């Protein structure tokens, strides 16, 4: 998994009375760095798995109802009739769609951004020996892992995985698979309960660690911005997830014990009245889901912003522009993100007054986001920028997140959202935020902290290749989706819109054309090709990642990027307990190129 150097083993010997075995060292470890790497590797695997689901779905979208080459047969062998003759059935498409979203959000990005980077970097950056509760930290990873296993198993049970979208709207989620009492949705809910438990334990641990274990002199306004971002993320997870847990419990009751929390009276399925008491509210589920769902968006993006901020400061060799503004903005985002959730629900008929309220708060929350992005852009001004791989990814994050953010404004206004809702425009918007946005930031983080974790650099040439090609294909995937969405193409169609009446471009009585033009439908193929290409260009990254662990260029010092923050003031890789001497902090996090100093960086623990 990772390659601890001899330093680590020696230092370990001081504390442990016996040499820890493989199990206690790598599987049941309570060391925050090992747990961080466990999170990292597991979530990277899930990231690829979630992407693989989408690559298969993209075949169905580009070539509706034709057999998927090679993989179609494998799907049939694994999953049976839902992939008969290698053709993806609508049921399977729905399952893959729901699980793609679930896996990417809850099993890939959040654990990678919060679990992996947070665990590995935060205690090092604040000068702590470990997390405040190391054993709870271990349990947090185990709960996450189990949640992943449950989600994965759900593909293979009768009826297949959950197929009601990652949002699992009721009553659809309750009636989607009535043939099986315990179905994919049941496992989805159980998996979510495990994942929520994991993130709850993680959040408590992170916040306590940041409040209690800061080194001497590490005052709040000397914290690196990354730590601030993780701090706010911790609060979002702590307070936004429980309502989803409550909703999950209620939906589980609906599915297993036939209650009617989310089922209105008089509900019929395929013409038959459903034998339930009724009296529930489908809107209630949506409110509870999005009460998590919207803060979750910021859980996805804030750690990414934190990573980008660290890398930009280090590679421009100058202090970050507007540190205080950044901190205040991230706090503001944290608060406001709890009162914007219903902007996902303009089309539910909840009333214009409520819509107006949420439209207003949504516009307000864009202000701190823009401040952060602006501060990061301004930080580039006048810097002598080092264009290494982490920096390239971090730089690309800025415009990509910018596109994602700005295209969100028409969705925040309820007048324009009525037209754009549930179209490919929405998909393009949030994927710009999360895919070339957050995922690029996470890639940047991998390349940036890899030398600290392993003592070796990743290969620069292949890193840059990975970057350039990923950037091209990411945009080829998501840019056409804006056009498709603006043309009115709906999401969640199992055949890419080919057979829907709106898809036919035919002349009507007045001589104008109905439906989507062939150009728009044809873009499905472009996008699919780009998606598969994006899959291919991840191969250099995967090989580079594993190859560099053993064969990469060795670091020549503990601080190869010449950075100021504390994680670089430890041995490489950091031993159990992290610091050889208790660190003391004398300055802010970004003292680069301080006039009068000998070197162009002054570490936080350096007195003069």
């Amino acid at each position: 998994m990772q390659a601890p150097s001899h330093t680590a083993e020696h230092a370990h010997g001081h504390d442990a009375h016996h040499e820890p075995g493989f199990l206690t060292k790598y599987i049941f470890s309570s060391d925050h760095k090992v747990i961080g790497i466990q999170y990292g590797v597991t979530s990277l695997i899930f990231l690829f798995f979630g992407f693989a689901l989408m690559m298969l779905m993209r075949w169905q979208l580009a070539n509706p109802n034709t057999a998927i080459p090679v993989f179609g047969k494998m799907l049939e062998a694994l999953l049976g009739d839902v992939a008969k003759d290698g053709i993806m059935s609508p049921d399977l498409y729905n399952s893959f769609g729901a699980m793609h979203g679930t896996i990417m959000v809850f099993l890939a990005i959040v654990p990678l951004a919060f679990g992996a980077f947070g665990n590995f970097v935060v205690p090092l950056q604040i000068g702590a020996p470990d997390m405040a509760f190391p054993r709870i930290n271990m349990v947090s990873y185990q709960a996450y892992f189990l949640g992943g296993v449950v989600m994965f198993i759900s593909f293979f049970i009768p009826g297949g995985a959950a197929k009601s979208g990652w949002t699992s709207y009721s009553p659809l989620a309750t009636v989607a698979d009535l043939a099986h009492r315990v179905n994919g949705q049941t496992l989805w809910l159980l998996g979510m309960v495990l994942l929520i438990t994991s993130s709850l334990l993680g959040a408590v641990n992170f916040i306590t660690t940041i409040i209690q274990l800061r080194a001497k002199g590490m005052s709040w306004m000397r914290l690196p911005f990354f730590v601030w971002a993780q701090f706010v993320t911790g609060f979002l997870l702590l307070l936004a997830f429980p309502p989803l847990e409550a909703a999950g419990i209620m939906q589980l009751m609906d599915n297993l014990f036939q209650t009617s929390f989310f089922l209105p009276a008089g509900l019929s399925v395929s013409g038959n009245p459903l034998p339930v008491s009724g009296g529930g509210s489908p809107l209630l589920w949506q409110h509870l889901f999005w009460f998590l769902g919207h803060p979750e968006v910021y859980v996805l993006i804030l750690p990414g912003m934190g990573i980008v901020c660290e890398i930009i400061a280090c590679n421009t060799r100058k202090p970050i522009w507007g540190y205080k503004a950044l901190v205040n903005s991230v706090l503001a985002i944290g608060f406001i993100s709890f009162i914007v959730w219903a902007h996902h629900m303009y089309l539910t008929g909840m009333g214009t007054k409520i819509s107006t309220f949420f439209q207003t708060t949504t516009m307000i929350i864009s202000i701190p986001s823009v401040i952060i992005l602006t501060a990061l852009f301004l930080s580039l001004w006048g810097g002598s920028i080092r264009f290494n791989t982490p920096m390239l990814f971090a730089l690309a994050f800025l415009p990509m997140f910018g596109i994602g953010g700005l295209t969100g404004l028409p969705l925040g206004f309820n007048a324009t959202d009525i037209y754009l809702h549930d179209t490919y425009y929405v998909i393009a918007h949030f994927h710009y935020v999360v895919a070339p946005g957050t995922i690029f930031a996470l890639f940047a983080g991998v390349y940036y902290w890899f030398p600290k974790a392993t003592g070796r650099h990743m290969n620069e040439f292949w890193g840059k290749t990975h970057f350039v090609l990923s950037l091209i294909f990411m945009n080829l995937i998501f840019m056409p989706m804006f056009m498709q969405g603006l043309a009115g193409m709906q999401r969640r169609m199992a055949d890419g819109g080919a057979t829907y009446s709106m898809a036919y471009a035919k002349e009507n009585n007045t001589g104008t054309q109905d439906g989507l033009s062939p150009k728009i439908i044809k873009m499905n193929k472009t996008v699919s090709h780009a998606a598969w290409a994006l899959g291919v260009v991840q191969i250099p990254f995967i090989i580079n990642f594993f190859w560099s662990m053993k064969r990469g260029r060795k670091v020549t010092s503990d601080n190869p990027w010449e950075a100021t923050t504390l994680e670089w003031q430890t041995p490489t890789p950091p031993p159990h307990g992290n610091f050889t001497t208790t660190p003391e902090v004398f300055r802010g996090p970004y003292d680069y190129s301080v006039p009068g100093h000998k070197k162009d960086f002054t570490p936080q623990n350096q007195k003069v």
Partner: protein
Amino acid sequence: MEIPYTVEARKDTGLYNAKVGIWLFLASEVMLFGALFSSYILLRVGAASGDWPAISLAWPHGLLNIPIGTFNTAVLISSSITVVMAWASLKMHDFGKFKLYMGLTLLCALGFVSIKTYEYHEKFTHYEVRLQDGKIMTGHIQGSPMFWDLKTLADKKITALDFHPDAAKHGAKAGEAPAAKEHAKHAPIPVGEITYLSAFVPKHHTFFAIYFTLTALHALHVIGGALVMAFLWLPGAKMWKTDPERFTNRVETAGLFWHFVDLVWIFLFPVLYLL
């Protein structure tokens, strides 16, 4: 490797780690129960107007046993007092008193769960029956079986249901659970006349759904808290000899959780029993 502030408080925050942790955990618990309480409000506001059970989607009133609920509230509040006494005894280095008060707390917890179980059983044996002539009754079946419905009757080949309806103005004296002797006169009902039969289980009505979900989740918290305290009472108490300060902190954090569980009930009782 030593993690700082596991026992002694950090100067600038005035707290030891676990105390920060438990408060954060409780904040998250507030959100969990808060979401369920909000759901209660939304379901109740969305219920049909009129009198239950005549209007089946109206909100039922007075179905829960108020004297028993009040007694249970008192039991739980007492346990909150004893758990503080247990902690205070440790602070005064009186280990014997700690054992006593912690034991009393556990006894209260056990009492609460037992009483709650009795209340659940009361609901599982209480039925609503709808007849072909449009008559709707609530009451008990002879022998107080649990969870019966029309399918049970068919499976058991029962031809006439020995049903004891509740007193007519049921619910007028708020919360008085109709005891068996108050039941109106009855004659067995031919099964053919029954169109609907259901015990007061979660699926019967959204009121019962939210009642059982909220109280069961609360009961799980009571049981969880009691398990932790039982550990601190028996095997965990060994720590008093080796690390008394840390042990006292453990009792304090467990106590904080226990107060929270108590507080949730203080909200649950009026919301479910009285309103």
